[in-house]
């Protein structure tokens, strides 16, 4: 789910190098080169900025500490070059956080780009990935300097390489998920008063997640008793003990995201006495459907069948979720990519927004990992 991005990513940025070994880095680069060769690409430019940095992180293991600034990687048959934008304060972190050796620190990733593209001409095909988040002025510079070349959108090339997560990647997502499960449990139970401000609830959750070592933490809340029902950033609004709140949290641990959401009341009672149990049954049925299905379309069809037997309906302001990993929102989308095969290596953030005819919203979100033993809900309540 879309959240606000921080001005600086100030959580733990340690990197256990066993979790992206030098061997794996070179394997990833070779996989990219093999895919490039199949597409007859002479070079690949990969850009990352803010939350849209999955491709960049996949290759370099880096996330930008200042999300507003960009990183650009260039891969050719014999080089990997990394350009970092305006990152003098984060230089030590960048240099020790990646296996890429040729790292350049620049004010603007596209400044003097001719130095990188000067050798390419009309006979060359250049792939670009992650460029949707590239600001237009920088894109204009790139287009101008590569006007002689064929430039090919290569997002799908990298999406395909990233789609199925390795055992190690799944483990990272599991670790992120465990932290979130603990955070969600803590914010449901750790209230010393019957009232608390939304911002205080967020501050507690943020603190706990950061002490557990996350790089980044996100928080959204819905409180239809106080404001509009939709998820939004926390505000200095008092939550009463019987308010039916929904809290969405996400965290990034060593590059990998997990997300989780629950609807609850601070006094520990179940919100919406009739709607909630019915919604919970539908959710459990949806999860079971995912376990039994081989295609996402089958699970979604099963979900619709479950909902039809109730008085509930889907809140179409939200999707059913999709892939999760190095980005919060990856392909496949459960709503749009119906033919996606659920298999070992699949990692999903599933969402189920259900509402009653009285517009009571019950929201579930969990991170799912499919391993060799099947589907596992890694953010399940402990």
């Amino acid at each position: 789910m879309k959240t606000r991005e921080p001005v600086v990513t100030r959580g733990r940025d340690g990197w256990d190098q066993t979790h992206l070994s030098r061997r794996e880095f070179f394997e990833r680069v070779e996989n990219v080169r093999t895919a490039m060769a199949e597409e007859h690409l002479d070079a690949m430019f990969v850009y990352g900025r803010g939350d849209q940095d999955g491709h960049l992180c996949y290759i370099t293991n880096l996330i930008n500490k200042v999300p507003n600034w960009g990183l650009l990687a260039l891969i050719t048959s014999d080089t990997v070059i990394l350009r970092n934008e305006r990152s003098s304060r984060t230089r030590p972190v960048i240099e020790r956080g990646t296996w890429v050796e040729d790292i350049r620190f620049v004010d603007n990733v596209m400044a003097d780009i001719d130095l990188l593209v000067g050798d390419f001409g009309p006979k060359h095909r250049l792939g670009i990935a992650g460029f949707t988040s590239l600001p237009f002025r920088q894109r204009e510079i790139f287009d101008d300097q590569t006007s002689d070349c064929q430039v090919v959108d290569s997002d799908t090339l990298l999406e395909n390489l990233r789609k199925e997560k390795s055992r190690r990647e799944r483990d990272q997502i599991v670790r992120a998920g465990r932290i979130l499960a603990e955070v969600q449990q803590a914010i449901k139970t750790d209230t010393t008063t019957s009232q608390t401000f939304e911002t205080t609830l967020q501050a507690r959750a943020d603190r706990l997640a950061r002490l557990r070592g996350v790089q980044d933490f996100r928080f959204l809340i819905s409180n239809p008793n106080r404001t509009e029902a939709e998820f939004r950033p926390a505000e200095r609004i008092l939550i009463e003990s019987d308010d039916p709140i929904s809290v969405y949290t996400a965290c990034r641990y060593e590059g990998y995201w997990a997300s989780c959401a629950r609807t609850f009341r601070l006094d520990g009672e179940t919100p919406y006495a009739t709607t909630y149990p019915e919604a919970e049954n539908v959710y459990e049925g949806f999860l079971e459907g995912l376990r039994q299905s081989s295609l996402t379309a089958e699970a979604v069809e099963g979900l619709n069948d479950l909902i039809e037997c109730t008085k509930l309906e889907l809140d179409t302001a939200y999707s059913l979720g999709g892939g999760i990993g190095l980005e919060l929102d990856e392909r496949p989308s459960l709503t749009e990519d119906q033919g996606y095969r659920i298999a070992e290596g699949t990692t999903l953030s599933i969402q189920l927004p259900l509402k009653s005819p009285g517009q009571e919203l019950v929201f579930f979100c969990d991170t799912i990992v499919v391993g060799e033993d099947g589907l596992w809900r890694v953010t399940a309540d402990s």
Partner: protein
Amino acid sequence: MPNYDELFSVLTEEDSPDHLLLYTDGMHSLSQPSYFEFFAEVSPVASNNCLLVTASGEMVILTDLQRDVERISRHSAVEDIRYAPGFADGVVELIDEFTAGDRLGLAGGDRIPYRVYARIGEHQTKIVDMETEMAQLTREKTPRELEVFRKLGEIADRGFRALYDVIRPGMKEYEIAAEVEFVMRSEGAEDNFNLFGSGSHNDLLHAPTERVIDEGDVFLCELSPVYEGYVLQICRTISVGSPDQVLTAKYGLLKRALAEAKHELRPATPASVIPDSMNKVFREEGYAAYCKPPYMRTRGHEFGFGPIGMAITEETTTRLHEGMVLVIHPNQYIPETGYLALGDPVLITEEGSETLTDIEPRLFTKEVLR
């Protein structure tokens, strides 16, 4: 509430464009102001948002996140708020609906995505950069803004006190950051640009790392809480355990440099008086060669809406004016001690200046209990 009359008047000047688009990608940047946030009075969540303003006083907000529409509506004085899943097309439709001319003023364009910019260009709309005009409009601080800066000072104070209370050997930098952030968020901060440094000899400040604090460390902090879109900053140094005489003596230079600079602050004075007075202190002690990068960065910044703004160097010709908010910091690398940090946020007043935080400008010592 922002002065919308002033905003509309920008579009009625001779040669001005016919309408103005204030764009934001929703990312909170400390290097670029968001005029969308300033005039819409809300920080959006969506990746694409804009406020269209016409010379006749019409205003429309467009966002590509449906669930943010009601929240924006609750916070903003702008009444017409629309959801556009196809943002680029939505912008063009707005231009068609509200305007007759073909010139579009744009602010926030540095981060506008290519496909949006290209779509506007396809529409044969000539884009006119209006960053300078928007910077002028937002330059004067309103009483409300000064209230926000005072609140930020309180938040920064509490953040530092929390940091001082928790720091001890064995903690990791990011754990300290978590505890400080908890306090600042509980006080109302919506974000923080916190930089730390720790070790016996620091080279610079950086985002918090896994480094474990040890007795004997010199711990540097630059706390920059964000509140209602505004930023303020305080810089301090903590000795973990008793400081040695060299550290105490050299930190005295920073204290003197800060005091000398504060003494010079008054309206109409060139901002360069800040680095001039600070550098004089260091030069007199034989550190002239260190009064330039990479041994220091700048001697301060102005704060406006959103970003850490104009960096203050010896070449800065801007004159201080009443109502200006700055951080002045003689942060300095000294070869005997490493990098040291000291900085105070100040408000330029009619008579001189007012420090916006209460934390004493001194070297702090955190006793190590055995």
